[in-house]
């Protein structure tokens, strides 16, 4: 795996998240977190525990920008923990996971399944921990559904444009 390319990808997507997507406050329930794209696209070549530490670091950086210490971190660690299991369920040919995970390597259907399982989990954790009470559960669920749909659309849209 090309590490400079990987790092560059992280920086670009984090900047996009902070400068563009965090500024989107048109509707109260719309907070897409597209920065998880980098975490999701990483190939499964590193040890599982190293993957989780990378998730923790990326989450912590996001937290500093969002004033939400620990929340993105917890969600990203969970995401990285579940990732290999979800991929194992969806994909039989393990060889393909040694490369960047995208539409070209695993196919559109598998990518959509993969993203549609993990993104709502991540978003639900972020919003539920942010609310920190059962009182706002309805609002949190609505926020999760709306924001997840937008995040998934952005990630799939990016893949569709790049590998058409």
């Amino acid at each position, binding site marked *: 795996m090309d590490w400079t390319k990987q790092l560059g990808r992280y920086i670009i997507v984090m900047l996009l998240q*902070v*400068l563009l997507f965090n*500024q989107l*406050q048109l*509707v*109260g*329930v*719309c*907070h897409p977190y597209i920065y998880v794209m980098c975490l999701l696209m990483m190939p499964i070549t590193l040890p*599982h*525990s190293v993957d*989780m*530490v990378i*998730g*923790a670091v990326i*989450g912590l950086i996001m*937290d*500093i*920008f969002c*004033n*939400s*210490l*620990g*929340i993105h*971190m*917890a969600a990203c*660690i*969970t995401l990285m*923990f579940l990732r290999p299991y979800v991929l194992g369920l969806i994909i039989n040919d393990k060889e393909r996971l040694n490369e960047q995970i995208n539409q070209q390597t695993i196919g559109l259907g598998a990518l959509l399944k993969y993203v549609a399982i993990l993104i709502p989990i991540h978003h639900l954790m972020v919003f539920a*921990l*942010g*609310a*920190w009470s059962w009182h*706002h559960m309805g*609002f949190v669920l609505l926020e999760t559904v709306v924001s997840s749909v937008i995040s998934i659309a952005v990630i799939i849209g990016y893949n569709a444009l790049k590998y058409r």
Partner: protein
Amino acid sequence: MQNLLKILLRYSNFLVFLVLEVAAFLLISLNNPYPRSSVLSTANDAVAWQHEQVSEVAGYFSLRAQNELLSQENAALRNQLSAMDSIKTGELMRYVPAKVVQMTTSELHNYLTINRGSKDGIQRGQGVRNSDGVVGIVRTVGYNYSVVQPIIHTDNNLSCRFAKNDYIGILQWDGQDSRFAQLTDVAAHMVVNPGDTIVTSGLSPVFPEGIPVGIVESSTLKEGDSYHTIRVRLYTNFKRLKYVEVVQNAHQTELEELTNGLD
């Protein structure tokens, strides 16, 4: 012993997951509710600088409207100044102007960052207002920047009173709409009409008495309720907030020490 090691090795990934999650939750609980580290939030200079640059660029698009607001505010201030001169009372409140460099309005826990910090004499717990009304309370102070918890935050509890008869209520926010808040603790025997003005009570040293908060939009009293459900339209437009003033009460420390001594 060897078996234990085997088990640990077998589940090492899950253990790493647990340790990391515990660390994350520790951070969340440290951070929740208030004593947040100023380094790991938007009071951090580098992060605040980035937010400031973004709002700087975005600021060019609303220059005309902002200028108009500023000139209105200047005029209002000059009027107040002349009124004050005639009274010649001892000055207790000092206002420090600040610019909002970052703000959220659509979360449950909204925060705004202002470009004034401990070097300008800002302290935790000081009130923040703008020319329209109350904005919030300073929560974290960095050297150059501070983080303010606005009244549109679900943990908000602001003591207010009706301008018409000084009846006290508590202002809270339900997380729904940044334009409206809820006034609670107003007993059923009180007559509440839409259009009643709500101002700060002056019961805490954070805000002086009589800073405008909002007007009553609607109030409902169901059969058997002992308190009104009151919806207040806030004077402060949080979606367009650019310039605020931090209220410094010269006697705040003394007042707080006095009340702390009562426990």
